[in-house]
């Protein structure tokens, strides 16, 4: 499904700020894999995700989705395959446009826009039903501007937009990190439901170890631009946080000291 082969990415090469963000990283995802990604600051989690999404090009290696080599494709072309939800709730939607307009744009993800009218009556009912499932009271606010919504509502809407026409790959970059715990829980629940319903192949970065263990069928931990732990199926199910910590120490030779990585 997703094939990331020997990719490397160095930021600011040859300067004092040189940062090897990804080092010869390889990752294969099977169709329907729901992978949680953890790791400390600067481990390369977001760099990995942005490399796959095409925010920047990689220095080396190749990225293949469903048999198509997308390594050289610009970001907007990869949108055909990839749905994304960002950490910042402001990033995934156009604040000055209506909920309906945002959904209409998302419903055309990866297709060339035409001179057809953007908001169609027949879409409206479909959008309303989908919004109803979010259970956030958005179904009656189709013509409200997205800027009026709370962070949690915007994040749920972004999630809906990213999965509106099922992407081959869903990328979630700490998409609940900026939300309060209750809202985060709700958005995570929605995420789980949507991924299950459409069997979406998903990469989810989280800084919360408990979430990383609770969700998905596979867990990877990154350190220094490499994957140091990769557990699947039963192995992952039986995993506990202390296990994970000791595995990290063994694999990286470091003690995990990271304020942002939540243990509980």
């Amino acid at each position, binding site marked *: 499904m997703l094939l990331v082969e020997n990719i490397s990415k160095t930021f600011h090469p040859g300067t004092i700020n040189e940062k090897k963000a990804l080092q010869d990283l390889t990752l294969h995802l099977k169709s329907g894999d729901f992978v949680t990604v953890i790791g400390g600051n600067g481990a390369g989690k977001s760099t990995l995700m942005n490399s796959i999404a095409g925010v920047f090009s990689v220095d080396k290696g190749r990225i293949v989705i469903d048999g198509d080599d997308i390594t050289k494709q610009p970001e907007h072309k990869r949108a055909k395959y990839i749905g994304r939800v*960002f950490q910042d709730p402001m*990033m995934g939607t156009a604040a000055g446009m209506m909920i309906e307009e945002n959904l209409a744009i998302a419903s055309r993800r990866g297709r060339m826009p035409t001179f057809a*009218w953007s908001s169609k009556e027949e879409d409206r009912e479909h959008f309303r039903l989908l919004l109803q499932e979010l259970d956030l009271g958005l179904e009656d606010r189709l013509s409200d501007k997205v800027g009026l919504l709370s962070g949690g509502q915007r994040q749920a809407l972004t999630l809906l937009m990213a999965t509106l026409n099922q992407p081959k790959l869903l990328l979630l970059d700490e998409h609940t990190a900026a939300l309060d715990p209750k809202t985060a829980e709700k958005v995570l629940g929605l995420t789980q439901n949507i991924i299950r319903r459409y069997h979406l192949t998903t990469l989810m970065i989280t800084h919360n170890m408990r979430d990383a263990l609770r969700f998905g069928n596979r867990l990877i931990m990154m350190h220094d631009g490499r994957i140091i732990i990769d557990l699947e199926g039963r192995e992952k199910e039986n995993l506990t946080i202390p296990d994970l910590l000791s595995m990290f120490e063994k694999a990286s030779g470091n003690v995990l000291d990271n304020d942002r990585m939540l243990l509980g």
Partner: protein
Amino acid sequence: MFDLFLPTLSQGLLWALMALGVYLTYRVLDIADLTVEGSFPLGAAVAASLLVEGFSPLTAILTAAVAGGLAGVITGILHTKLKIPALLAGILTMIALYSVNLRVMGKANLSLLRIDTVFSFIREFGLNNAQSVFVIGLVSTFLFGALMYWFFGTEIGAAIRATGYNQQMIRAQGIDTNGTIIIGLLISNALVAVSGALIAQSNGFADVGMGTGTIVIGLASVIIGEVLFGTRSFRNCLISVVLGSIVYRFVIALVLQLGMPPNDLKLFTSVLVAFALSMPLFKKNIDGRRAVK
């Protein structure tokens, strides 16, 4: 005073096309595009030159639109493909257009005296000069306003609007933001050039210096319109900008009547725009003080 009413209204309508162009870059694309300072006289120069050569007013105006659109595309390429900051890209095109405009006209000023213009064409239906300007202003503003409303409601138009709000988001939805920015600048500067072409015909001349201050007049119209007439929806915004352009002309007519020397107009407009742009800050301070009390 009353005999100034219709001409002032008409001027407001002719300039409204320019204001719509500025609205498109400044608000929709979120770019302060200085190309307009060059594309406005470009429209005037192209139209005047063609009219002098005996071409029809319609040909002259349409060619002006194409020329203005091209100027916008150049700024767009400088900004998106060559990564030059938008403000600087606009300045570069604006400066370049000064030379282009001189070349188009062959001299600094081209008179349209005794040349058939779009207004003399309308006068043949028995209208006087002021009425003909009003009719053309009304028709062109309505026509281009409706076209804009339609276009920005289409899938492409929605993508351009979303680009202005959030480039990251619209790229994640598969839209090439370089393309949408270039199209936006094209349409904006085409509108500005049409406005220049109409103003030149209404004034009876095209002048290489007539673009100075275009951006500020455009901004003044946009801001006045938004404050007085609202920003609820895209259609509301378009109407607000047109009305803002008209109100701006009345303000200018008023201060001139009150005895302000015409040479001070640009200073006045700049102060007006600076004041309007800083309004949110003042408002916040005042609200903040109220809240403390």
